[in-house]
């Protein structure tokens, strides 16, 4: 069963009084996220990531299309009993202490009594905020607010958690701790939906990634699928490659970069790759490895977004 599913979701923000034009925030977006995954949504600013999450939580209404969370329509408030959410730039009431925030929002989620109190204890320990539990949140730093926000998102023991920039303002040690928390939650069978612009972090924790730009879904896949360039290969070698061989090799492939760290060749098909390997072998070049070339997630992301920008 998918933890969330949406079909042909679109959102148009209409221009208000004296505001010309409309903004197409989402365009015909269809997507399914399986249970027990860390799913990340990437996209440049204004891509529609936050709008998408807000639609899934009924904070914003879709213009068309429909969506289901935990197999129920998103318009049913009770579906949110099993949903956790950490909004970007969240603001907790400053007059509450950390513990009161968790008690209040836990109660609003339908969790009450001794079960809530003991859960709050373990959550505060989990996010490293035990000693700040009785301090008013107006005194918290940005990083502490994020930690409390994460605890708030988990206070109702949700089956699916939406996290919008969860590591924003958190120091490197804290970011590592949050990544560990996310992995543990996944291991418990929970689904994590992550919105983040920190691509290196997304790459470290995500099972699947979707890339969104101008409201359109460009690509969905595992990190490996998104970072593997099918037509590019890395060939490891020992020894040196003379200039004449370089010229001859360049003639057999679409593009080639030869350095002391290896050869990166872009080829049109497997036959061209074999032809290149044959050429190298013929000139007694010792080949130590051959594999598909992998980019970082950042390189793949930028390449995909650039392709979408018209010349």
């Amino acid at each position, binding site marked *: 069963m998918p933890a969330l599913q949406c079909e042909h979701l679109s959102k148009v923000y209409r221009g208000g009084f004296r505001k010309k034009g409309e903004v197409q925030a989402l365009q015909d977006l269809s997507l399914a996220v399986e249970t027990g995954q860390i799913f990340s949504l990437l996209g440049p600013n204004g891509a529609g990531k936050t709008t998408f999450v*807000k639609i899934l939580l009924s*904070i914003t209404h879709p213009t068309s299309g429909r969506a289901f969370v935990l197999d129920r329509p998103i318009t049913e408030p009770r579906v949110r009993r099993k949903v956790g959410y950490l909004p970007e730039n969240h*603001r907790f*009431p400053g*007059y509450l202490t950390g513990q009161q925030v968790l008690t209040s929002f836990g109660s609003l989620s339908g969790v009450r009594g001794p079960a809530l109190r003991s859960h709050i204890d373990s959550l505060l320990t989990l996010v490293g905020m035990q000693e700040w539990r009785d301090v008013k949140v107006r005194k918290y730093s940005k990083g502490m607010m994020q930690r409390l926000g994460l605890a708030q998102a988990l206070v109702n023991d949700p089956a699916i958690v939406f996290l919008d920039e969860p590591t924003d303002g958190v120091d490197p040690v804290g970011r590592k701790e949050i990544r560990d928390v996310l992995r543990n939650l996944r291991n418990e069978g929970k689904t994590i939906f992550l919105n983040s612009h920190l691509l290196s972090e997304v790459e470290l924790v995500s099972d699947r990634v979707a890339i969104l730009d101008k409201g359109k879904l460009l690509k969905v896949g595992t990190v490996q699928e998104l970072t593997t360039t099918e037509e590019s290969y890395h060939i490891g070698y020992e020894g040196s490659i003379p200039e004449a061989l370089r010229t001859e090799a360049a003639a057999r492939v679409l593009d080639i970069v030869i350095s002391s760290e290896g050869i990166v060749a872009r080829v049109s098909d497997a036959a061209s790759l074999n032809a290149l390997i044959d050429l190298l072998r013929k000139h007694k070049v010792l080949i130590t490895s051959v594999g598909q070339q992998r980019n970082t997630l950042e390189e793949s992301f930028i390449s995909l977004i650039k392709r979408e920008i018209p010349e």
Partner: protein
Amino acid sequence: MNILVLIRLTLRELSSKATMYILAGISTVVLLGVALAVSVTSSADGETLMLFGQQVSPPVPAADLARVVQQMQAGLAGGLFTGIILFGVFATAGVIPDMLERGTVDLYLSKPISRWQLLLGKYTGAVTAIAINILYFLAGAWLVFGLKCGVWEPTLLTSSLTMIFMFAALYALVVFFATWTRSTAATIILTYLYLFILGGILQNREFSLYLISENTIYRTIVDGFYYLFPQISAMQENAAKQIMGLEMDWKPFLQSFLSGSVFLLAAAVILKRRDF
């Protein structure tokens, strides 16, 4: 249950603001002032109600003292009524705009609670906070008059229900403005504009708006506007009548109830349709 949580949160929010303490402080100062100023002297001519050592009225038979005291209570309640309008609206106008701020509203809306429940919880919380202040003042005043004058008529206490009802009706209008504008300042300005300008013009429409045209449709629309808003002045008169043990006019109660329901419903519709 969720509404109870929201009421508790709203009470906590309001109790964290200085305005509520100032309101309670003003009430306390007024009560202490009344306690020091009011006294009753007995003479052969009867009982005389004194204020700061001055006669409030000629000596009356002991049996009539309650009526004189109730007149003074009605005057005091009138002051409280104005105070509630001025300060109560000011103290609570921010409840809805604060909830609707980006980053806060997302947290509320992501919970398993419908938008109308959210609105109702916040509305009830704010009305409860002002109700506590009204009860504090009127119970205090009742105690002061009882101890100082020996008049223990319960009408001052029961008038608190009328005052709380009046504020509840008025606060529905405040909630409507707040949901529509999402701004505390705009909410206060619009409410005060109604209370001090539009409300007066509508109430005296025979001498103002009616003069613009004799057209029946126009005058019906003007009348419609008058009945759309809570009947603040009529409710104030009712509170005074209640304190003095006179018969009240129930029409303003019904009109204010309908007006409050309409404005709350309109606010709920705006909130339901809005994207955050």
